[in-house]
């Protein structure tokens, strides 16, 4: 079974999982999200919690609800997400990573910029 951490509410954790998938284009823009019930049984989460997670993504403008059809990925959602993730990386992760690289004496020349090994 999926394990959930104790740091954040469950709906927030589910929203984060769904965000990660949206960045990878799953589902692609303009396509329907899986139904509340499908997500509820896949992650074994109460449907009300799933609904809350989808609503959070809707509030961010990443999903839109189409009457009677469910939630759809909005146009531009992926780019919006990537921009937000880039911003988060540069502001939060990069300074920490930079500090660590400096301490270990790793320069650009030590890093493989081509293919992931």
């Amino acid at each position: 079974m999926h394990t959930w951490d104790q740091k954040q509410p469950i709906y927030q954790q589910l929203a984060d999982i769904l965000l990660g998938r949206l960045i990878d284009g799953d589902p692609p823009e303009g396509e329907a999200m899986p139904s509340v019930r499908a997500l509820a049984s896949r992650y074994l989460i109460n449907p009300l919690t799933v609904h809350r997670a989808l609503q959070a993504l809707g509030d961010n403008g990443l999903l839109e609800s189409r009457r009677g059809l469910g939630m759809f990925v909005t146009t531009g959602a992926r780019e919006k997400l990537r921009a937000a993730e880039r911003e988060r990386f540069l502001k939060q992760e990069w300074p920490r990573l930079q500090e660590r690289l400096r301490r270990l004496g790793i320069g650009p020349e030590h890093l493989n910029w081509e293919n992931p090994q």
Partner: protein
Amino acid sequence: MNVTAATEALVQAVNLSVSYGAKRAVDEVSFTIPKGRVVGLLGHNGAGKTTLMKAMVGLAKTQGQLSVLGLDPVRDRVALLQSACYIPDVAILPRWARVGELITLMSGLHPKFSAERARALLKRTSVGLNDKVKTLSKGMVAQAHLALIAAIDARLMILDEPTLGLDVLSRKSFYEMLIDEWCDGERSVLISTHQIEEIETLLSDVLMLNEGKLVLSLSLEDMDRRFVALSHDAAVADQMAAAHPLLRYRTGPGPGGNAAIFDGEPPADVQALGQRMRPSLVDLFVALTRKPELNRTQF
């Protein structure tokens, strides 16, 4: 639980008690179960869970008020069982029967049972219609049983420790079927279990019994709002203890692995000593149902 939904409550209990001789197994409990909910009934062995469930289907004599689907469970038992289904903790399916025969049997017994739906539900599982119950694994029997009762067009399902003794994959399939095939936003289900961590995310509400008394009845959403869990360093343990948390416990190894649960927001200076966490149901359960003599304050 939501009071505004009381008009649509499937179950309403007011000062409900059930006694066995001089012993009160259920002691003055009041709660409602609205429609469309997944309610966990938690309690140690002997806390009164099974007795409360039996009372809801008219199998125990009660004092106080109890209305299930608008009916009196003892007086209107036959009518009630048309719209409420129940798997008791001692549930068994006849070992000699084939699954297909059980469907025929149910069709004859229950006016709201759909043989077609039962067969469709069984298709989700690896149980075949020609299989004899005695050849099935414990997990398959539980799934077959769920398929049979979920094929009843009822509004309330009561499951008394339905996954006891099942392995993790069987438990997962059981709950997948329950969520997928039963929970439609209208019907409700009441489940008792000791595997609290596993079903926490499935639940919309929780009822917690301790020695017959209801110690907690609220939605998981309200639980997140009402209870505050703080993880903290061992160095501030004394200050945490002085703020009178419900419970202090260890979350992991090392000096950082300490936590405390508070009922309501602790003062800002106390909150500043730790980091806020999601209060987990199992920690809350321990906090609210421990016997006082087991109440360790030192970790």
